[in-house]
């Protein structure tokens, strides 16, 4: 199994840490992982993205142009990454702030209204965990217990008490994902 | 009276100077760099000297100043803006030359260039934006970082035993005979902005009179580096930066201002 994933959005949306938790979860189930962020000053109030690879084999290139899955959290990222999903792949996005919705027919497209779900939960910080849940629903690349372990590894000790909340958020994401465009034949 | 009735060209009392380009500033929300940019451009516009002005941008958050200031500009290597400006001012003696630099740029790697341009009394204006941190590279400690202040390279607060006290390079160079005007300002309120602008104006006017070097420090915020919201950062700045970096004139027309 190899999953090549890009997560892209605003700096403050927890894009990088979502990727990191995923990668740690992969490690927990003995996979090879790589996590390659975009970096630099364009991150300042701008966009951030990270390429995550989970694989059962040694990972060669950590840097990719095409992805199995794209998680897209703002319009700029939609503009940039819609076309990088491999035919037959998955695009998951938060419709909030998206003005031009994805149009591709050769991929499966899902929505997760994570912004509002996070508001509902009364904690903006779980935003990225809701996304994680939606993602795992359609791409169960890591098991939930490994995510818990991954969270433990990537969060400082003093935040461990928040892990149940995060798991709730993941559940919320799993429960609320919406299929926009089911790929019929191609995959 | 309806708002729409007021919004007419003849009632215009403030708008962004035309010398600021339409490009979106690359700065974080509320960052003083943007305000400081505007001031310099307003002075140049008001003096009508755009055809004879050359700016020098540093390496730091304001590295892209040339994208926002609609004037001829050079982007200097980290810390070397005073050397770059020296050469422009000497080879084009009738131009107005200024540098725009951060505190890492001017007071760390550029210390020698700063001190020697000041000592030679180059006929330039130095705009020195001191936010007590390396903004651009992600909030590392600068020579100007306050004691105990956390940064990404002093995560437990600046330890003066190991890293020394914050360097008041402005006071240091004020003592040099070649330096003509030195003052320290802020740009987070309209009152501060107005004072700062006056000082910048005087600096450029003294360039015209070939009086030598004017250094204007602007104590500013770095929300990202300080990890604060903009308004909170301005309050923190007033409470913590201003007592250490006292605002006001330090040297005027070549004379040190005595403070009690």
């Amino acid at each position, binding site marked *: 199994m190899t999953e090549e994933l890009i997560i892209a959005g605003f700096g403050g949306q927890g894009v990088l840490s979502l990727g990191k938790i995923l990668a740690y979860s992969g490690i927990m189930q003995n996979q090879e992982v790589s996590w390659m962020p975009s970096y630099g000053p364009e991150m300042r109030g701008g966009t951030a993205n990270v390429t995550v690879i989970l694989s059962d084999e040694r990972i060669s290139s950590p840097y990719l142009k095409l992805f199995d899955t794209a998680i897209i959290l703002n319009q700029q990222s939609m503009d940039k990454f819609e076309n990088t999903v491999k035919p037959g792949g998955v695009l998951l996005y938060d419709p909030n702030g998206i003005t031009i919705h994805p149009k591709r027919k050769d991929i499966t497209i899902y929505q997760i209204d994570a912004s509002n779900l996070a508001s509902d939960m009364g904690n903006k910080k779980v935003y990225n965990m809701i996304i994680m849940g939606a993602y795992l629903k359609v791409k169960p690349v890591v098991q939930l217990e490994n995510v818990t372990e991954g969270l433990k590894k990537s969060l400082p000790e003093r935040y461990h008490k928040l892990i149940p909340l995060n798991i709730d958020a993941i559940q919320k994401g799993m429960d609320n994902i919406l299929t926009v465009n089911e790929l019929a034949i191609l995959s | *009276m309806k*708002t729409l009735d007021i919004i007419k060209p003849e009632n215009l*009392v*403030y708008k*962004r100077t035309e010398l600021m380009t339409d490009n979106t500033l690359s700065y974080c*929300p509320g*960052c*003083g760099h943007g*305000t400081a940019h505007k001031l310099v451009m307003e002075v140049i516009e008001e003096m009508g000297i755009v055809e004879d002005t050359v700016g020098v941008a540093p390496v730091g958050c304001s590295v892209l100043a040339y994208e926002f200031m609609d004037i001829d500009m050079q982007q200097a290597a980290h810390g070397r803006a005073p050397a770059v400006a020296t050469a422009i001012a000497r080879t084009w003696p009738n131009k107005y030359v200024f540098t725009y630099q951060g505190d890492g740029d001017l007071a760390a790697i550029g210390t020698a260039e700063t001190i020697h341009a000041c000592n030679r009394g180059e006929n330039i204006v130095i705009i020195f934006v001191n936010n007590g941190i390396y903004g651009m590279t992600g909030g590392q400690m600068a020579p100007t970082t306050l004691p105990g202040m956390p940064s990404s390279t002093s995560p437990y607060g600046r330890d003066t035993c190991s890293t020394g006290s914050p360097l008041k390079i402005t006071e240091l160079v004020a003592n040099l005979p070649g330096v003509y005007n030195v003052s320290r300002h802020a740009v987070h309120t309209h009152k501060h902005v107005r004072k700062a602008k006056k000082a910048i104006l005087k600096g450029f006017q003294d360039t015209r009179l070939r009086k030598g070097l004017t250094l204007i420090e602007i104590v500013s915020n770095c929300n990202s580096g300080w990890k604060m919201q*903009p308004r909170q950062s301005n309050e923190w700045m007033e409470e913590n930066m201003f007592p250490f970096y006292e605002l006001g004139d330090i040297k005027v027309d070549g004379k040190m201002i005595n403070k009690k």
Partner: protein
Amino acid sequence: MAKVIGAIVVDNDKCKGCEVCIPVCGPDIIRMSSEVNLKGYHYAYMENPDDCTGCTNCGIVCPDGAITVYRMKVED
């Protein structure tokens, strides 16, 4: 007696929602929108337009040059 009234125009797309303009406004006119602009920022707007004196404070301090200020005299 003549009175001065003012108004501001915020360039919503330039505004970065920093709120630096709020504390310098004597009559406390400015608030932040609940919507976000293209860049994802809540932007400033005149909540109490009638009290604006056109003093320009907000425009002067706006780092992003997002505010244009107008002012006129009216007879009381």
